[in-house]
């Protein structure tokens, strides 16, 4: 099966006042339709910017230099016109953010924002049918009183509620690819787990491919079919989830695995900030497909 998203030798740098900064040093990522893939790394490793590049947002940033291929559904996002890129957003590609409450506009109701997202999918849809559709979609994320939620402002809802709203919005237009940038990290752990399993069920039903960006291998284990480990702008190891967990080869992946805090009370795990070992060459696990 051909890939839905195929990133080849993607490089990104920023021109800053202090000079040129290298952020991505040529990464390769590929996602098949309906596949759930995780991109794991520490803060500053370049995972969030990758999502912004797939959305075509960073290409429009004046100080960002993007090179390489980002093939999505047969189009190279890097060479598309800004207008064509914008037409992919919210329709074929959508995104879920870290903190649901601050990702929703504080001065507009959920309804207004939801209807705007729906009209991205079909501009001709009447207001009435968009309201019906939003109500129905909120039902799919187990919101029992969609009417009240639609007429609420984000600050009137709990974080978990807002996250459900975000998930419903993200899947409203049946995107082919969902980017989840540390979804729910701002929520407490139990709510995060609930919303994540909800999200997993929905993307499986809709056959939506997911790029799940996280710093937490534990969260990713339950979710992803395949994992890419990114360190300082390089993919250091990738492979099926069970391979990464049972047979990690790269020193950085091993350090990450060791860094998952455990309940047994051995104290905080000790991970060196920088280690020469982490710069070891890339390890690719064989794909069993």
């Amino acid at each position, binding site marked *: 099966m051909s890939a839905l998203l195929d990133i080849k030798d993607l490089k990104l740098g920023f021109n800053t006042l202090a000079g040129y900064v290298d952020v991505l040093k040529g990464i390769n990522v590929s996602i098949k339709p309906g596949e759930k893939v995780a991109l794991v790394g520490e803060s500053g490793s370049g995972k969030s910017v990758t999502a912004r590049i797939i*959305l075509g*947002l960073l290409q429009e940033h*004046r100080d960002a230099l993007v090179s390489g291929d980002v093939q999505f559904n047969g189009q190279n996002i890097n060479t598309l016109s800004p207008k064509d890129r*914008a*037409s*992919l*957003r*919210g*329709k074929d590609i*959508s*995104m879920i*953010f*870290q*903190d649901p409450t*601050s*990702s*929703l*506009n*504080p*001065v*507009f*109701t959920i309804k207004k924002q939801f209807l*705007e*997202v729906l009209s*991205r999918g079909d501009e001709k849809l009447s207001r009435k049918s968009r309201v019906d559709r939003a109500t129905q979609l909120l039902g799919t994320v187990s919101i029992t009183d969609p009417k009240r939620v639609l007429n609420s*402002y984000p*600050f*009137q809802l709990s974080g978990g509620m807002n996250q459900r709203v975000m998930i419903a*919005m993200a899947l409203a237009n049946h995107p082919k690819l969902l980017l989840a940038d540390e979804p729910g990290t701002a929520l407490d752990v139990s709510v995060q787990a609930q919303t994540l399993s909800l999200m997993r069920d929905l993307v499986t039903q809709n056959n939506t491919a997911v790029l799940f960006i996280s710093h937490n291998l534990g969260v990713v284990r339950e979710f992803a079919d395949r994992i890419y480990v990114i360190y300082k702008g390089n993919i250091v190891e990738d492979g099926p989830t069970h391979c990464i967990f049972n047979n990690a080869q790269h020193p950085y992946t091993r350090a990450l695995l060791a860094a998952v805090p455990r309940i047994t009370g051995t104290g905080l795990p000790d991970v060196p900030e920088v280690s020469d070992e982490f710069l070891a060459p890339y390890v690719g696990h064989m794909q069993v497909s």
Partner: protein
Amino acid sequence: MVLRTLLNRLLISLIVLVGVSMLIFGIARVIPGDPARIALGPNATTEQISKLRAEMHLDESLPSQYFHFLIDLSRGDLGTSLYTNRPVTLDIAEFLPATLELVFLAGIIMVSVGLPLGMLAARYRDSWPDSLIRVFALLTVSAPSFVWAVILMLLFAFYLPIFPIAGRISDIYEIERVTGFLTIDTLLAGNYAAFGDALRHLVLPAVALSLSGIGQAARLTRSNMVETYEKPYIEMAQAYGFFPSRIARSYAFKPSLIPSLTIIGLDFAAMLGNAFLVEAVFAWPGLSRYGVAVILRKDLNAIMGTVLIISITFLIVNIIVDLLIGYLNPRVRYSTRGSA
């Protein structure tokens, strides 16, 4: 809810008014010079002066004078102006509409030009429209309004006589006075030519008065919006492909307007005071000019009346701004406390 907020605000405003009146009452009497002597002129006899002083209760203690003032005020009597020899209420009724007309139009210009300029600058941040608008805003803020009044008058009334040079309306029109607002009175009289003429007289002073406000509003809106553009909910709107112009006009503008509004409201009210120099340049028979004239003559009753009416306008504008913020900001609207 709104009613409670309103009542709360009115009560606070009343307290502020009492404070302001006491303060001005005291200050006006501390300024050196005998108001009775100034009013009667150099040739007045001592008897005449002491008679006027007794009439005005000037020989009594300050609290007792204030008490007399309050009793008169409760009857709607602000006393007689020593400058115009007419009741102060009449003077205010004559001069206030001219100033309000000017300030209202200036306020409308300030908001309808300043906010879109700021929005445009933030939307095209760091590109040429932004630079242009920033230079313009800085220019307007850095020169006082009377400088703009003189420049505008020279350019558009003298060299290019597009607008009338001074006054409120041409002498050829006889308009019956109903509200004192010439733009309204001319319409009430059905005299559209006179309305156009009054409006043309308003343009230059109003623009001159509004310019620094435009710059202020544009700068404020820009900086608030630039900050808003960094917020996750704007990134979300971009990630979902909302149109950039729509993001600017609605998703980024509305959250940014709320903090700007308080300052814009204050700017608007401050125009009442700034209007003086513009009124002086354009020979505009308004309250600000009257206010300065009576202060220079130590016309106690007229000073009190003018300051009170300006304070009341200030407070009303503040209440309107508070209500507007409550309307725009759902957090305030839905807060359970009631007072915002």
